[in-house]
Each structure stands twice: as C-alpha cells, then as structure tokens.
C-alpha cells in the first residue's frame, strides 16, 4: 500500500510538473527577438529597440499586444504612447503595478468631481513638497499626528 | 504473443469443438477469439495471455450459442409456418437409430479398445459435460491455469471454480467407467 501511494505520488508529481511546464510555457514560451517582430511592430515599438533584449518574455508579449492596439489609437494617443514607452519599460514591475492601481482608482472618481485632471495635476505639483507628502496614504508614510 | 497463440491454438480449437461440436464453427470461433485478443490485448504482458485468451474464447463460444439460439428460433418459426414438416419427423427416428447403433459399437470391452478410441470417447464425454464444468476442467487441467486465473477467465469466484472442477472430474470419471474405461 505504501508502495502504491509512493507510485501514485510520483506519478502525480510528474503530471503536476508537466502541467506547470505547459501552463508556464504557454503564454511566454517564445520570446520574440527584435528581429522576429514585423516591420510595422518594429516601427511602433522603435523606442524599445535598444532595451528589447532585456525585457522579459511576458512583457514582450504585452508590448506586442500594445503595438496591435496602436493603429486604432488617436494620433495624439499614439504620440503619447511612443513618448512614454521608454519610461514605462524602465519601471520596476512593482512601480507599474502601483501605477495601474492608481490609474484604476483615479478613473473611478466621477469626472464631474475630479475636474480636469491635467489641471489638477499641475496644481498638485505646485504644492510645497510637505503638503504633497502629507497627502500620501498612511501605510507608506504615516501622517504626523496632531 | 505469436508463440503463445501457436502453442495454444490447437487446444483452443479442440475446446471449441467440444463445446459446439462442429469443426467449421469452432474454427470461426478460434479465429474470432485470436483477433479479439490481438486487437484488445496485444500489448499485455505474456503472463496474462493464457487467462485473457481463455476468457475471450469462452465468450466467443457463448456468443456463438446465442447466435445459434436466435437462428434456431427463426428456423422453428419458419418450419412451423411451412407445410410438410411431418416428413422431417418421419426421418428423425431413423437417424436416431443409426446414431445409437454407432455408439453401441463403440462400447466395447476395455481390452479391445484402441488408444485412439479411448481418446475419442474421452472427447465425447468431455463434450457432454455441462458447459461451466467443462470450461473449468479444461482451463485448470488442460490449459494449466491456476484457480485464480480460471476464476478471472470465467468471471466467477475461486470457490465455484473448485466446485466445477471437482464435479467435472467426478462426472467424467463416472461416464468413462460406464463405458468401460478407467484411467
């Protein structure tokens, strides 16, 4: 019986490993090299050309997905995206996660209440650093108790 | 598997003959059983082959009887519908008499029996055994399967195998004794 169980566990472990391999390998199995990209995608993703080889496969697929959306964007949006690419690519995964989280929260604020975001941003930037930091949520920097 | 079948096919044929008492049908049955074994169990280890082949063979024999039953049902239906059935009835007693005459000549005193005749009589008596008893007896003592394998091939308990075997032995021994043969 112990032998049976052992056999079973070995078989199950192998199967799991195989499954993990499939699951993990499927989305990021291929790591498209820069040369493998289509000419159109190379043109869209041009700002990333120099750093492409340092980008992990998963992110490369993400970029290719963005390149596919690119033709459907407004010219203004296209220009913005290309301008921001390099910066975005250089962020750490945590920073990107944080930014996405913030984007989600900000977009939840009703437009009539948040006003013009650009204007708000420049107003916020003009605040003295102390006040800006005070606005940060307590978990990152607890607000001084008064 | 090739070697196994080569060694087992003649005995299988004989087993089928004992059961269905017809060479052509027995050949068909063995052929069918071989095909089934090859198609379904061609990759099984050699040690399992004898048991599997026996199981398939016995199933094939049962299938044959089932088909016979259906066929004879049709024959009965047709013959009951057709006129002139009385003629057949008239012929039957003659054949029965002739057959009885043949079997009478076989019952000779033991010392005058040739070895070949003894074998034939044994075959006849084996053929007359109840099907399950014959199956168990032949698998155990001719095919040399053990009790567990026989039970597996017959789809019954080991206890039943032992019972079938011992009944078959007694029936057979008694029948042979009645015909003047003691082994």
């Amino acid at each position: 019986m112990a032998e049976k169980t052992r056999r079973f566990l070995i078989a199950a472990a192998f199967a799991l490993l195989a499954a993990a391999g499939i699951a993990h390998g499927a989305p990021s199995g291929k790591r498209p090299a820069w040369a493998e990209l289509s000419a159109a995608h190379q043109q869209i993703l041009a700002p990333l050309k120099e750093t492409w080889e340092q980008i992990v496969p998963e992110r490369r697929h993400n970029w290719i997905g963005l390149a596919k959306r690119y033709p459907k964007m407004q010219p203004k949006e296209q220009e913005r995206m290309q301008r921001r690419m390099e910066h975005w690519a250089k962020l750490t995964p945590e920073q990107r996660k944080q930014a996405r989280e913030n984007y989600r929260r900000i977009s939840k604020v009703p437009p009539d209440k948040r006003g013009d975001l650009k204007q708000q941003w420049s107003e916020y930037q003009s605040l003295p650093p102390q006040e800006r930091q005070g606005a940060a949520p307590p978990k990152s920097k607890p607000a001084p108790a008064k | 598997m090739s070697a196994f079948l080569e060694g087992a096919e003649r005995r299988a044929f004989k087993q089928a003959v004992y059961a269905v008492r017809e060479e052509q049908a027995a050949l068909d049955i063995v052929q069918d059983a071989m095909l089934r074994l090859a198609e379904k169990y061609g990759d099984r280890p050699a040690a399992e082959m004898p048991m599997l082949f026996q199981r398939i063979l016995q199933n094939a024999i049962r299938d044959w009887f089932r088909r016979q039953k259906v066929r004879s049902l049709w024959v009965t239906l047709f013959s009951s519908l057709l006129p002139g059935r009385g003629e057949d009835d008239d012929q039957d007693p003659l054949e029965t008499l002739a057959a009885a005459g043949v079997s009478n000549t076989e019952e000779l005193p033991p010392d005058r029996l040739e070895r070949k005749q003894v074998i034939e009589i044994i075959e006849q008596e084996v053929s007359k055994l109840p099907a399950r008893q014959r199956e168990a007896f032949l698998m155990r003592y001719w095919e040399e399967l053990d009790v567990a394998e026989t039970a597996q091939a017959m789809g019954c308990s080991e206890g039943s195998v032992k019972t079938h075997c011992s009944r078959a032995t007694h029936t057979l021994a008694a029948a042979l004794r009645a015909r003047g043969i003691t082994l």
Partner: protein
Amino acid sequence: MDNELQFAHRVRQLLSENARFGGPVAERLRAARNAALERRKAEPAGGHVVVGNVAGRMGVGGLSLRVIVPVVALVVAFAATYTWEQKQRAAEVEELDALLLTSDLPIDAYLDRGFEAWLKKRAAF
C-alpha cells in the same frame, strides 16, 4: 484429491495427443493467427507502455492506470484553466497599460503616492 489430479493428468495427456494435428484445420488456424497478429495493437514501445509494465510488475497495473488517467485529466484541466486565467490577466494588464500610456496625465502622476489621495480628498468637497 490426488486421485482427481491423477485422473485429470491422464485426461490431459490423452486430449493433448489428439490436439497434435496437422492438415487443413492446422493450416487454417495458422492463417487465423497470422491475420490476428497483423491486426495486433502497436507493439510495446515508448514511455506509455513502460508505465504499464512497471505498474504491472508492481501488481497495481489496473489500479495505477485507473488512478493515473483521472489525475492526468485533472492536471490537464488545471493547466488549461491556469493558462486561460493567465491570458485573461495579461489581456487586462494590456488594456490598462494602453489606457495609462495614452492618458491625459503623465506616468509620473500615477506613480505619485500622494496625488490619487489628494485628488479624492478634493473631489469629496
């Protein structure tokens, strides 16, 4: 019991004598055997059968196959679900990235820890 065995042994000998025949019947049996062997399932080869053999030798052939097949099926289903979820997540991230990269606000606005809270506080008034 000994008598029974002895008797059975004699019967076997005699029956076997009659089972050593040649002729057309033997010929037909041989042909049937060859036909069967031709239709035989693939010869034992490759990993699949090795598993079967090992299991067979362990005496758990039936069980292990009965266990392994559902386990493999389960694992494949798990892998498929996982892959599908990964893809969904990747698509969501992509969608968000597209919005973020083309947003009115610069990336820095979203990286700033205070801006979002400040904005909400203002919106509340």
